[in-house]
């Protein structure tokens, strides 16, 4: 299983807001294991999807130069269960960003119905020069963002088309 809990981005406005969708399929194993006989998308995985939507928004805001970790969820409300066949629309809005981290508000909708809403605090992890560096290599994020279509729909804060972070090409060339 790959730890990707969104299917693709449909909007990405740098430093402002990102929208992603998650299609729920009855073929997903975790639906069957959560409440046997009553397949629903676990709220924890909806939380993860919202955190991934918001986390990439926060990481991109600093060109992935900061190591962004989910620090805290001060508030989370789930209004109804999401079930197979639903398409969840995840919206993450950047409320605040500073040296230490970021605050994001996030919602999940099924059609027009608000399915879940939460606040998420992300922290910038101090560089320990060791293990975290490997875990947080920018190329990992950029690879995931390409896979999720961020650069197809993304706009930078001046309205122009979002480009891959500078340095990525260099990094890629360095690998060859």
């Amino acid at each position, binding site marked *: 299983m790959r730890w990707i809990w969104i299917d693709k981005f449909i909007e990405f406005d740098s430093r402002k807001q990102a929208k992603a969708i998650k299609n729920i399929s009855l073929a997903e194993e975790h639906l069957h294991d959560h409440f046997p006989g009553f397949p629903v998308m676990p709220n924890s995985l909806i939380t993860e999807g919202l955190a991934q939507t918001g986390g990439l928004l926060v990481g991109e805001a600093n060109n992935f130069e900061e190591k962004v970790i989910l*620090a*805290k969820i*001060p*508030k989370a409300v789930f209004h109804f269960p999401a079930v197979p066949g639903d398409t969840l629309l995840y919206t993450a809005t950047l409320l605040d960003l*500073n040296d*230490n981290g970021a*605050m994001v508000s996030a919602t999940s909708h099924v059609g027009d119905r608000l399915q879940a809403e939460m606040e998420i605090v992300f922290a910038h992890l101090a560089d320990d020069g060791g293990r975290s560096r490997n875990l947080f290599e920018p190329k990992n994020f950029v690879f995931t963002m390409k896979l999720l279509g961020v650069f197809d729909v993304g706009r930078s804060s001046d309205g122009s088309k979002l480009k891959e972070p500078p340095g990525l090409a260099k990094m890629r060339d360095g690998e060859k």
Partner: protein
Amino acid sequence: MPSKQEIFEKIKTSLVDALGVDEDEVKPEATLVGDLGAESIDFLDIVFRLEKAFNIKVPRGELFPEDILTNPDYVKDGKVTPEGLVQLRKRMPFANLDPFAANPNVKDFGNLLTVEDMVRYVVSKVGAS
């Protein structure tokens, strides 16, 4: 300019939202860590809420001076040195550091800050009527 009471009420809302405590627990003399159960990551959350509530910027280390408390020049054998205390007083004029100064164990510092200190901090930023 807001009154001190208005500032206190806004701080109370921020702490209730950030820490999940009841409103009546947020008294001026309550300590953030000891009485309200704040953990280190909560301070990041609290800073975001204060910045939004009062439209201020809280620079890194101003409200929670981690850099001083982890600086070997200012901490010896787990205690803040006299030079370190000077730095702390300079950085945190809004906090009453006298009880801490009597026995300045770094591990006790987290339990120093009270709700009233936060009110004084915000007043120092925005003023009060």
